[in-house]
């Protein structure tokens, strides 16, 4: 006995599911990302109001101000710090990512979890902990004194050096994770083939491993360089107001100093750098493949 096949109900082609599903996210992104970013570009070409705020009169004064020695120095300093942070994160992170990726899958996922857990602690409290360690009469100085490596306590706090430590320790996971997932995807057979064909380990690494994991490395560059360039909390917490980066200058324009167009111009500078890096990235990889999590 066989049931008579039911005719397949023709589904009405409706726009409703599209609107209900893709609608909210699209609206949110346009309202709170696209429009504000376009508006900040517009503001950067306006004139600073006498009592703060903005006068809607075209000028490129803000961009000229960026070239002033004081601001230019800050920009240069931020760039240098971001470059060094990125390089250190890559150099320290790659072997670490490699180490984890070569472990069996269950061990590796546990090791990754172990990286994430400390980052659930409030980031400012973790930064404060570095400060407590490196206080002038704090544990690190005491240890160095006891070992006889220094004669008098050193002033580590409020230095570029401590800010760099804060930057690297906070950015490192964002370098390790994308590099880990691209190394993990690397086929072991390729490395074996390379070895079988007579390549020494160093050559295999340079010719096979490194090029094939380059997307992960570039993701790591983007995910460490750009945040490092815009950060102000780390300089606030560890630099004690003495170390200023672009992020601090932007923030100040919307606080006490109230020069919106200048803050906007600096923001546009950061936007341009971001766009440039992303453009380079999309030349050899799809943005959807970037491991951002």
């Amino acid at each position, binding site marked *: 006995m066989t049931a008579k096949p039911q005719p397949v109900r023709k589904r009405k082609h409706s726009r409703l599911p599209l609107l209900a599903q*893709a609608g909210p996210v699209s609206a949110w992104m346009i309202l709170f990302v696209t429009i504000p970013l376009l508006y900040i570009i517009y503001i950067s070409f306006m004139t600073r109001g006498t009592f703060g705020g903005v006068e809607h009169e075209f000028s490129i004064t803000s961009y000229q101000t960026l070239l002033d020695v004081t601001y230019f120095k800050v920009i240069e300093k931020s760039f240098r710090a971001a470059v060094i942070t990125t390089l250190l994160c890559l150099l320290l992170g790659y072997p670490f990512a490699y180490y984890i990726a070569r472990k069996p899958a269950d061990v590796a996922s546990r090791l990754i979890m172990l990286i994430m857990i400390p980052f659930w602690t409030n980031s400012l409290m973790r930064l404060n902990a570095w400060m407590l360690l490196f206080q002038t009469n704090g544990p690190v100085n005491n240890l160095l004194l006891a070992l006889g490596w220094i004669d008098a306590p050193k002033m580590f706090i409020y230095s570029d050096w401590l800010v760099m430590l804060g930057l690297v320790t906070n950015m490192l996971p964002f370098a390790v994770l994308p590099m880990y997932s691209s190394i993990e995807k690397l086929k072991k057979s390729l490395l074996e083939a390379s070895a079988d064909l007579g390549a020494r380990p160093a050559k295999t690494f340079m010719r096979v491993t490194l090029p094939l994991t380059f997307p992960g490395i570039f993701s790591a560059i983007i995910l460490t360089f750009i945040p490092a360039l815009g950060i102000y909390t780390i300089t606030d917490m560890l630099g004690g107001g003495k170390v200023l980066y672009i992020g601090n200058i932007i923030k100040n324009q919307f606080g006490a100093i109230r020069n919106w167009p200048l803050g906007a111009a600096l923001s546009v500078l950061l936007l341009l750098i971001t766009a440039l890096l992303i453009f380079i990235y999309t030349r050899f990889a799809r943005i959807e493949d970037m491991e951002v999590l």
Partner: protein
Amino acid sequence: MESHHSIRRRKRSFRFLGDLYAILMYAVFYIPVAVMIAFSFNDAQRNYYWQGFTTDWYGKLFSFANTDLWDALLYSVIIAVLATIISVTIGVLGGIGLKKFRFVGKKFIDMMIYVPIIVPEIVLAVAMLIIFMTIGVKLGMGTILIGHCTFCIPYAVVTIKGRISGDNETLQEASMDLGANRFQTFWKVTVPSIMPGIMSAAFLSFTLSIDDVVMSNMLAGARQSTLPVLILSLNRTGITPDANALTTVMIVALVLGMLAVNGLQRHRRKKEARLAAEAEKAISTAGGR
């Protein structure tokens, strides 16, 4: 033979170096947490130097005398919960929608999703601040919430999109062919099949929101600040050890919560495996009859 030995020895020493390096890396991640916890037991009014051991700060914390700290925490938690609910809802719908549909401007929206993830947070915060000030929106919980959702939604969308595979679409088609309507299919088929993605999107949104400083700082009103913003301002005068105590309680709760969820999942998987085995046995005995 000699060379064989030396190769093995070299391999072993290499592995040892690798382990040592990993331990050093983990030390870098865990030292600040350990120091943070240690200073919650510091017998000092403000945390600069270690002045002796006390557990008083935990007593003080739970006497709720420091209302600033608790008010800030409550404010942060309310915002984080709301941001999670909004972001996961929009993110789940959006993740499915952006994966399934083609429409005019989709490429642009796909790109916009990545903007809040990649662009420095200060830029987006300032851009939103200017818009809010220009159209005269009062700064406060609402504006902070919008700010948090703006960076949580993209992470939720990316997480969900990663969870949707061809299988999901086949299942949805099957469900619709069997006569379920769109809502039934969404709730009974689509949502359960991406549940792990939804959970990790929720977890991610909550942790991103509760730890956020930049948006919360720039988009806050004058009256109440979130816990991280309070800590940022406390840093100028020295952080009181009860803030360390509170942070310690929070991290311990989070880790215990995670272990509980993991344990529950493992328990459920075991139970499922057992049931599957029993079912298989039942089928084979039934078949043998």
